[in-house]
């Protein structure tokens, strides 16, 4: 029996990395060393398998066994193609096509003086010194093969730098278009957001697709919130069913910062959404709020790693899932309370509606507490549409499909109502309402009354 050679296992990544090395020969040494170290790590570990505890519920063979190219797409997008994805009232919009910044499709708007919003590639070329202490600094590429691969292939992505006391009322929109026709393609965007002391802003990271071939997005976003910064990050996954999307949001929170992460997962065949805040200064607050709606054979894995590294911080995780067809959802909420993080207040709640007998949810809390004066709670529910409520609504004249839709929207609204930006919340509400019809206009199978529930206080 012959074992798989390293070059076989690495597929075309070796070649892609080699080309990038050539292109980036003139870039700063620290960056080249970072890529080298990350690539070495990727060569060592490869992609995770279901034997890894953190990947138990998610099989990534569809990604690791396939070959994706990183060439520029043949299909050229025109501004009109993207109009359907316009986020109203955005301060600016950065468009990336297969991971590369597309200035012709972007609109950087009028931003306050000193605010830098643009492409990481541009920043690497023109202002690399400002990046050195941040880029790749927070993401621990040793954690998994995907982060290692992304770091090894750092080339472009979105870059935002908010100087001290900047307040942006309108959201910044990053639109990532995946374009693949004929051949499978991929992108490894790396986003860096640096928010200095007392800043306030919202960032919307949005994934959409064009074409008919598989597309693999492997994204890392590093977001640094300095003292007292108040930041909201929104992830919208609405690619088509050819998409594989692995994304990691790494939040670094300084003293008294307040960061919220909202994820709305609607599209994609295989989605893994990692959210990893580190509460590194006293009094930090973090809210991780998510909604995933799966149908058909979609797989949506939400993995949270919340690290309490300082005293008096609070974190909240709320994830609501709606699963139909044979879709599979995962909620894996891990909380680590480090030794000195006394008075930590951490809570996680995962609520799920299963609309079909064949839909599946795996929900797994994981608390690791090394401090002795903390409050950590977690809970999960799995249920179906409440038949009594459905009948009650019908008895008042509302037809069954509309009643189902109202009940599902009410469930989704639990997540939407935690979003502070009115314009983003209303926009997402509209997106979700359009997304729902296929999944709701049919009765619930089974007896409809079973509900499982567990709740613990630790």
């Amino acid at each position, binding site marked *: 029996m012959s074992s798989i050679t390293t070059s076989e296992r690495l597929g075309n990544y070796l070649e892609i990395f080699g080309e990038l090395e050539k292109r980036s020969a003139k870039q700063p040494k620290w960056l080249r060393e970072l890529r080298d170290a990350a690539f070495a790590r990727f060569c060592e570990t490869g992609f995770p398998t279901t034997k890894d505890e953190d990947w138990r519920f998610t099989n990534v063979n569809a990604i690791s066994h396939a070959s994706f190219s990183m060439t520029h797409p043949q299909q050229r997008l025109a501004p009109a193609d993207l109009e359907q994805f316009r986020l109203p009232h955005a301060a600016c919009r950065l468009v990336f096509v297969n991971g590369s910044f597309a200035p012709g499709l972007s609109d950087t708007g009028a931003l306050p003086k000193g605010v830098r919003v643009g492409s990481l590639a541009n920043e690497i070329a023109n202002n690399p010194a400002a990046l050195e202490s941040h880029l790749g600094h927070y993401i621990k590429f040793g954690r998994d093969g995907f982060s290692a691969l992304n770091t090894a292939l750092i080339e472009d992505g979105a870059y935002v730098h908010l100087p001290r006391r900047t307040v942006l009322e309108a959201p910044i929109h990053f639109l990532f278009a995946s374009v693949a026709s004929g051949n499978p393609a991929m992108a490894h965007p790396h986003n860096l957001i640096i928010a200095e002391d007392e800043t306030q802003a919202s960032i919307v990271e949005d994934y959409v697709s064009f074409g008919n071939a598989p597309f693999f997005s492997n994204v890392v976003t590093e977001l640094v919130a300095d003292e007292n910064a108040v930041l909201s990050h929104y992830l919208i996954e609405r690619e088509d069913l050819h998409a594989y999307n692995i994304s990691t949001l790494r939040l670094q929170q300084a003293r008294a910062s307040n960061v919220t992460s909202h994820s709305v997962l609607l599209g994609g065949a295989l989605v893994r959404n990692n959210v990893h805040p580190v509460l590194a200064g006293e009094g930090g607050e973090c809210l991780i709020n998510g909604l995933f709606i799966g149908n058909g054979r979609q797989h949506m894995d939400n993995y949270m790693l919340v690290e309490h590294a300082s005293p008096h911080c609070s974190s909240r995780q709320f994830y609501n899932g709606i699963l139909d067809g044979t879709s599979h959802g995962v909620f894996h909420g891990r909380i680590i309370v480090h030794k000195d993080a006394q008075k930590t207040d951490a809570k996680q709640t995962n609520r799920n509606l299963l609309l079909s007998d064949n839909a599946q949810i795996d929900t797994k809390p994981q608390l690791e507490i090394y401090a002795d004066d903390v409050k950590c709670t977690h809970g999960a529910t799995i249920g179906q549409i409440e038949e009594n*409520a459905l009948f*009650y609504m*019908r*008895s008042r004249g509302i037809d069954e499909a509309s009643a189902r839709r109202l*009940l599902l929207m*009410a469930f989704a609204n639990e997540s939407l109502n935690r979003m502070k930006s009115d314009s983003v919340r209303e926009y997402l509400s509209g997106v979700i309402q359009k997304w729902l019809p296929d999944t709701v206009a049919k009765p619930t199978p089974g007896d409809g009354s079973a509900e499982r529930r567990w709740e613990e206080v630790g």
Partner: protein
Amino acid sequence: MSMLEIKNLHASVNNHEILRGIDLTVNAGEVHSIMGPNGSGKSTLAQVLARRETYEIAQGEVLLNGKDLLAMKPEEAAGEGLFVAFQYPVEVPGISNAYFLRAALNAIRKYRGQEELDAMDFLPLLKEKMRLLDMDERFLNRPVNEGFSGGEKKRNEIVQMAVLEPRLAILDETDSGLDIDALKIVANGVNSLRSPDRAMVVVTHYQRLLNHIVPDYVHVLVDGRIAKSGGPELALELEEKGYAWAEPEAAISK
């Protein structure tokens, strides 16, 4: 044509027959009361009329304004003018009272080919009906029935009835669990909705409610059949003599 015609209605749940041949005719403008002891089938009758699917109809016919009610879905029955105030109103988490009721009213208006109401037109209407039932405006934005007390839920049912303006209203034990003040408020609300082109069937265990909502006819339901029918005086007689008094006659009429 009668508003409601029930002919020889038999209904069972899990092969257990609960309604065993009900006959009842209700005309526009009339208020009928159905009284009976626990387990006599009062609530089953209300649920069957509301088109709850858990009941099997073995025999019989129910006509709502001449149309076959038993062939209608619950939402169609509502569109045809039926309203049932439930004994145990259901909580609908995440949907506000105001939103829910506007959706219901517009669904019914659409069913009838009428124009839908926007929030601007709807809100004053709802507020007016809530005042009638002495309900605070904060209930507008609270999720339907969620966290409401028993009395608040019952009043909320009558608010819904007042907004939806049914042609036939069935009140299923709307008085149960109410204190006398709440009972008066509910009864006033119901009385204000009495009209020559609307009929009501008031299902109750207790005579007390009928002091406040005076019916034209009273029927006593025993063991799945109407054992006795009469005028309002029948309710007083029942109060005095108890349901046992009506039962032997049910046996005789077999």
